[in-house]
């Protein structure tokens, strides 16, 4: 079968599962007075449409910041404005100032879901297709299989089409950035990533690798000649993009400060709810939230985040190629997730670890179906488990070290058994979270267990990926895609 038909089948399957998930409930459905993220997005359309720009991020009589005030950068606000114009055409009641609070109707839900689908088709899906086409190894069938697995990834589908968010826009733009860098179009890549950053500040997780990669590349080209010129062009692109996005807010010095204040709410504390990062897990043993002062918490999280991303970034700076870049992306985002301030569980976009959130939203069925489907599909199509020998895991050096102490260990078998053990643990926790009642003494037992289990996994991943990036044993396949 021809390539184009296989790719279009993948896209159609991805689109069908996305829209089918959207039939289910969304966050805060039918739960006054605050509702949930869905209501937040609707409220932003209302605010951006009805109020002038300089009032968007400020607390005024017309704009109560306590009721889902804007806390994403300006591009999200502009996106909401565009959606609001369309909403006004269809039904003005949806964006009526004040009167439309808590508005819920079937046609409105269809409209909101349609906006997510539209941006997905426009931004995220083409990026995934191009990525698989250009940057995946293997035959065209393997590329299609990879594309299918990425498109059916449960985390993104459940959060965007279930809980309701627009992660596909920021992730899609970031992916376009990676594509740009991979194809050697540095300016385009920086432009795309800057736009992603201006859409959701969470993309800061990925910013350091982008910076180090581009800087390293320029240094390699010689800081006196072409390298400097390239660096200047990239910086100019980034600055101009920022300026264009923030233009309405640059008239008054108070504006950018307020926006930044909304984007980075340091006043809200080290963490909220149950997040699978270090602080939440540590809190179970030592109550650091209450023990340390706000400033100490900030300093500690800053220091640890920096500690964990520094090795990976420096390595990337010294060896700016695509493989290092991808690894650095993973390491940087994991480090930020684990150690930074005020992280939300959605930031990880890994389905199983958002289970309590999904159950609260009434999304249990799509969670089970999409996770099972994804798991089965990845195992079947990508033969994930077959590739768990040491070579594939690139842990050759690690093996040398452990050979002295644990000579009889068969690493690949350990990995396989560990994989199945994790799966069983996740399934068991999912089951108990939904069907069993926690003991009265520990009402939050199951969410806490979920976050601790997840935290241990992430800790393991960050160590593993750092090892891989820093040791960098020889790759078997040719390095034809490196820059």
């Amino acid at each position, binding site marked *: 079968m021809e390539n184009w038909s296989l790719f*279009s089948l993948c896209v*159609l399957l991805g689109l*069908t*599962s996305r*829209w089918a998930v959207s*039939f289910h409930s969304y966050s805060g459905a039918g739960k006054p007075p605050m509702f949930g993220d869905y209501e937040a997005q609707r409220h932003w359309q209302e605010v951006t449409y009805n109020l002038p720009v300089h009032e968007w991020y400020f607390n005024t009589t017309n704009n109560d910041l306590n009721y889902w005030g804007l806390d994403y950068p300006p591009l999200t606000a502009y996106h909401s404005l565009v959606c609001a114009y369309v909403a006004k055409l269809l039904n003005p009641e949806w964006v009526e100032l004040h009167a439309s609070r808590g508005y819920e109707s079937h046609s409105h839900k*269809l409209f909101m879901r349609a906006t997510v689908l539209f941006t997905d088709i426009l931004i995220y899906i083409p990026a995934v297709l191009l990525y698989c086409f250009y940057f995946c190894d293997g035959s065209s069938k393997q590329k299609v299989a990879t594309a299918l697995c990425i498109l059916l990834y449960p985390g993104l589908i459940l959060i965007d089409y279930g809980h309701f968010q627009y992660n596909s826009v920021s992730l899609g733009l970031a992916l376009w950035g990676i594509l740009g860098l991979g194809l050697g179009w540095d300016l385009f890549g920086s432009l795309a990533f800057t736009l992603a950053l201006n859409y959701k500040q969470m993309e800061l997780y990925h910013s350091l690798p982008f910076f180090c990669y581009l800087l390293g590349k320029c240094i390699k080209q010689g800081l006196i000649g072409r390298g400097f010129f390239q660096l200047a062009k990239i910086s100019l692109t980034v600055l101009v993009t920022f300026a264009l996005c923030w233009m309405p807010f640059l008239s008054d010095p108070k504006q950018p400060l307020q926006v930044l204040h909304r984007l980075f709410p340091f006043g809200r504390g080290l963490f909220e709810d149950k997040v699978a990062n270090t602080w939440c897990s540590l809190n179970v043993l030592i109550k650091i939230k209450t023990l340390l002062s706000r400033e100490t918490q900030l300093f500690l999280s800053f220091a640890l985040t920096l500690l964990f991303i520094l090795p990976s970034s420096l390595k990337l700076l010294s060896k700016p190629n695509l493989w290092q870049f991808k690894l650095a992306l993973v390491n940087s985002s994991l480090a930020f997730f684990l150690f930074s301030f005020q992280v939300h569980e959605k930031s990880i976009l890994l389905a199983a670890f958002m289970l309590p959130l999904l159950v609260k939203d009434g999304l249990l069925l799509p969670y089970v179906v999409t996770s099972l*489907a994804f798991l089965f599909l990845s195992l079947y199509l990508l033969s994930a488990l*077959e590739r*768990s020998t040491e070579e594939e895991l690139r842990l050759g050096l690690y093996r040398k070290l452990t050979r002295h102490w644990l000579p009889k260990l068969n690493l690949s078998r350990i990995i396989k058994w560990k994989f199945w053990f994790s799966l069983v643990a996740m399934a068991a926790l999912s089951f108990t979270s939904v069907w069993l009642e926690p003991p009265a003494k520990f009402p939050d037992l199951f969410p806490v267990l979920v976050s601790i289990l997840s935290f241990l996994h992430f800790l393991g991943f960050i160590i593993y990926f750092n090892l891989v990036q820093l040791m960098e044993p020889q790759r078997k396949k040719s390095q034809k895609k490196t820059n």
Partner: protein
Amino acid sequence: MSATSHLLKVVIQTVMAAPMTNDQSWFYALALGVSFLKCLLINAYHSTDFEVHRNWLALTHSLPVSQWYYEATSEWTLDYPPLFAWFEYGLSHIACFFDKEMLVVPNLNYASPATVLFQRLSVIVADVVFFYAVKECCKCLREDKGKDLLGKPSFILTVLLLWNFGLLIVDHIHFQYNGFLFGVLLLSIARHCQNRHFEGAFLFSVLLNLKHIYLYIAPAYGIYLLRCFCFTQSNADGSLQWRSFSVVRLVILGTIVLSTFAVSFGPFIALGQLPQVLSRLFPFKRGLCHAYWAPNIWALYNIADKAFSILGVKFRLLDINKLPKASMTGGLVQEFQHSVLPSVSPLATLVCTLLSILPALFKIWHRPNGARGFLRCLVICALGSFMFGWHVHEKAIMMAILPLSLLAVDSRKDAGIFLMLSVTSHYSLFPLLFTTQELPIKIFLMLLFTIFSLASLKTLFRKGGALLNPLEVTYLLGLIPLELICEFVYPLTVWQKTFPFLPLMLTSVYCALGVTYAFIRLYISLLTCSDTTKKTKMQ
């Protein structure tokens, strides 16, 4: 190797990550994938058929057998044969564990989340029969060794059947149990292909007792079994050898059929309720056409009648006052009085149907072509009844498409006809899902199935030119503007209020052209096909 042990082996192999030496794993992957998709559609729109089946669960559970065909609290009375009622009875015992309230007969339109979950899951689980039948059908195909997976006829057939757009839309959104029923039909066909005729006949009589609409294709079965099974041998040129008649076989076949009917209708005959049961099974439905005209001959007949009456009034050949009221308002009423052309009675449709299938039956009596000829005749019987029947539902086209898929992966002419018929009839199912929420789903799934069938059949038959000639391609492409007009443009115009049925009429007339064309082509291919019994594996 039985299916369960096979599945277990696949699971264990996945666990141990051993390489898949067995090449049947793709079947289970496809089956699992489509089941996941069906699970995601649990929350989609469901039609009144959902309430129909809930009502049947309730009445078979709460009432004694003697009341089943008399119960009329709900308007959706039991109008399937007794074996289906027993199936619902069995399901109702599992329904107890989900929500007891659904089994209370007066709870009309009861649709709690547990009820929806149970009913949807019952359709998904009943599809296991369909999976098994598809697997058996794949065994009847000619296999080419060494082809890559996506080009194998059995892979293509599996996807065409398991992921069939019509079944997904009608069963898992609109809500019916067609997957299960078609599973029994395909299994019966597979058994005939494998020369296990007694099993095939038994399965078909069971099917007739599950849903009597399959009477449409009973003539094909009757003639085929009589000709190819009861007459054990043919002459060298394929003609009938009268002396080879086997009374034993005929008697056994008769016993199988009669005993199935006895088990099914027996209790009701004993209770003296047979007339009542028959009146429920064959209600005298008013109207030549359903509210939405099925894309058959009568749709074309209706539109011709309308055109003549409008032209007649325009050219003052007819007096507008003398014409029946309904024909000029443009509305679709059940009782359709034709104004210019003669009105059509149920008897007339029966005669037309019989006339349309007689040549095909005669052909397989005269020169049977083994199982393939039987299959072709079956498709023609299904299509003929669809084309000329009384009060036909557009869903009935599925009876022609699913068996035609079996032929499509075997011969390139049939592949062309299949593409024409399947795309047209799948499009004609669109009005079944009229909600805005389901619009993207039906478009995505339609594109999915169409792109797959086009691309895979084209690859399978790449030697020998294109499968569809330019005229056919133009016709199929014309479906795109038709869809845009009917679903997107027309609702925004001023005519939406005055002529709300115009899009439906356009759809059924346009599709009727395609279906008629496919019917004619299929007939021609049956009447002109040479006797290839010696060459084919299917015998």
